[in-house]
């Protein structure tokens, strides 16, 4: 086995979590018996010992200033003996044993602009990535769309009023840092124009053989342009993966006129009921329309409403679609099915409908 490495004093690793556990949690670690939803955003966990722990979950804007973190620390000091945690979806959780503290805390959170919710059959925070705030690859912004969509669906954050959980995620390019590929609804930044090649600089900045080799569809080959050694792209073959751009800055994919987002639906991660599923393409393209991306927000609200109106209790979006069939999903949401929806990558044939199980 690889030996634990302590060769340099540097590698101290993260602090041990134990020092950060609230006393009620330390005492009941591994002894929890069941939980109840007190109200949206508020959980009660009951221990074998009879102890009760209340958790208030506040929606986080993942991009946070130190000023805000300090305000949140103030609340944790005030209500939770200085303990708090963040969730796997970037929300903030406050835990304490005295239920009378619930409402005051919620009121204080409201004051600093943080709603409480995201538990049970709800929409919780959108897992997302950097977008124009930090990444060179981004085909769209992340935080702006996320803010707009959450504003639009906030009632489903603060109320547990959906057939089941609905997980939304956003990634600003095909690298899919948020791992959006298994989300109930995924928003994906996309390029739609083949690389604009900076022929003047390409030879200087990149190795030509590496650039050609980077293209999974072999669309790129070495060539001389305007007397300079560079590469040529067969545009028909480009599927906009941006792999060439990842290895070479002179192969720019970012393009204001053609970048935008696509919407994917029906993925899930949990093993509950159905095995985990990938999300599937619902809308091939919506424009980048900052600051509020109304087309994206509307499209998502529409999908959620149709699902909410028709699914059975417990049916995640993808499970519902699987029962009613994709043709009806397209029909009910009014989304146009087109050639682009049909897979043409390497396992495409396995996505064809290979039976007579049809609904009319």
């Amino acid at each position, binding site marked *: 086995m690889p030996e634990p490495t302590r060769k340099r004093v540097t590698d101290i690793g*993260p602090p041990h979590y134990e020092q950060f556990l609230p006393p009620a949690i330390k005492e009941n*670690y591994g002894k929890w018996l069941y939980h109840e939803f007190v109200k949206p955003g508020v959980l009660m966990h009951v221990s074998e010992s009879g102890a009760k722990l209340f958790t208030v979950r506040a929606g986080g*804007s993942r*991009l946070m200033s130190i000023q805000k973190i300090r305000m949140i620390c103030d609340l944790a000091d005030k209500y939770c003996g200085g303990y708090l945690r963040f969730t796997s979806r970037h929300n903030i959780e406050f835990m304490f044993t005295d239920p009378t503290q619930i409402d005051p805390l919620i009121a204080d959170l409201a004051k600093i602009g943080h709603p409480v919710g995201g538990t049970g059959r709800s929409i919780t925070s959108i897992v997302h990535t950097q977008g124009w705030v930090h990444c060179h690859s981004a085909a769209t912004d992340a935080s702006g769309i996320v803010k707009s969509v959450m504003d639009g669906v906030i009632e489903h954050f603060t109320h547990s009023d959906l057939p089941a959980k609905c997980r939304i995620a956003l990634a600003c390019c095909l690298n899919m840092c948020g791992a959006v590929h298994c989300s109930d609804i995924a928003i994906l930044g996309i390029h739609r124009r083949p690389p604009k090649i900076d022929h003047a600089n390409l030879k200087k900045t990149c190795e030509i053989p590496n650039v050609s080799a980077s293209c999974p569809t072999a669309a790129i080959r070495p060539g001389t342009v305007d007397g300079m050694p560079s590469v040529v792209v067969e545009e028909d073959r480009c599927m906009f*993966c941006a792999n060439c751009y990842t290895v070479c800055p002179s192969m720019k994919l970012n393009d204001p006129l053609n970048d935008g987002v696509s919407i994917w639906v029906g993925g899930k991660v949990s*093993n509950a009921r159905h095995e985990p599923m990938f999300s599937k393409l619902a809308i091939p393209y919506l424009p980048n329309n900052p600051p509020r991306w109304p087309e994206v927000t509307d499209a998502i609200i529409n999908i959620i409403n149709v699902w909410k109106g028709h699914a059975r209790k417990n049916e995640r979006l993808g499970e519902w679609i699987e029962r009613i069939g994709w043709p009806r999903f397209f029909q009910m949401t009014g989304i146009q099915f087109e050639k682009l929806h049909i897979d043409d990558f390497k396992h495409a044939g396995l996505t064809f409908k290979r039976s007579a199980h049809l609904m009319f």
Partner: protein
Amino acid sequence: MADKLPPTPKLDELEKGPWPSFVSEIKMAAKSSLASQDLLGLLERSYNEKIGHWKHGGIVGVLGYGGGVIGRYCDLPAEFPNVSHFHTVRVNQPAGWYYKTDALRKICDIWEKRGSGLTNMHGSTGDIILLGTRTDELEPIFAELTAIGFDLGGSGSDVRTPSCCLGKSRCEWACYDTMALTHDLTQSFQDELHRPAFPYKFKFKMSGCPNDCVASVARADISIIGTWRDNIRVNQDAVLEYTKNGLNIQKEVIAFCPGKCMEWDGKQLDIDNSTCRRCMHCINVMPKALRPGKDTGATVLIGSKAPIIEGALLSSVLIPFWKPVAPYTDLKDLMGRIWEIWCEEGKNRERIGEFIQRMGMGNFLETIGVEPIPEMVAHPRENPYVFYEEYLVEDDEEEGQDKN
């Protein structure tokens, strides 16, 4: 400094509405950070032009580490000099994302002094992301962080910062101690985490039960998901209680059971545990009545990743049932064997999941010394192209001959 904020009519729109606004956050940070001020201006420009203004990052970092910092440079340094460098620092979070406020405040203090004052709590791998600083601040930041007990996370072709659901700390369903395992692995693999030497990144994610609250099955090279081997614990009285309170067991529970292994006669809930798939659904719906069994442990899966470039993968079963017992030597040994063959034969930028597909799962198992078992596959092969490995020759009918 607040009066120096650039005009941001587009971004200002994003301060409206009920959801917490990242624009307000940047503005708050901008009160004490020139970098955040410039970020506002740059971002407004992106909103107008519909394009980002960042360039490929160069290699920046702290001494002796190969990862933990993402280099980032602006393509308009003249206009936005304070974000001309805007590197992020990935700080390894404590397992389960629990904090005491004093620790958090100390991080804020460092970041106020040496960075933009902006963070992600957290990044999607799980790190604390300190968003935007200059190259010359990196060493001081690192020194101050380690002084308060924090260290950098992963980036590049290394073990990435492991993360986990809160497990036994607050969840009745945790089938093993996710936080203990995560902390132990993180500490044990410090070298692999800080000094990239793999063909590509390698992620660990730990979930306490099949609900998989860290989405490990979708985005970890090793996904460790709690489960149990014995029977679901049923409290029949509590089941009855649920039905009295309006639960329709047939429609809401049994109809969704993927194992088709439940029966309800109006009084008694029968579960054929031999065909229960440990999906959690019935337990999720009736947490007071049903509980996972007592013989708990975890399923170890391997190989998930995002789509670039051969297509997305979910993790697949490597060990159906593993008993996590500290110091987890068996698992670490296995990791050693996996990394050995992957480092030797993996291609550059080939994740382990892709590698296994390329070399064939059977061959992979052989190299790492794991027996092939049917739990590893959804079903046996459908195609008849079997690589039989031995054949008999006429001279010596009795002896097999290895094709290889």
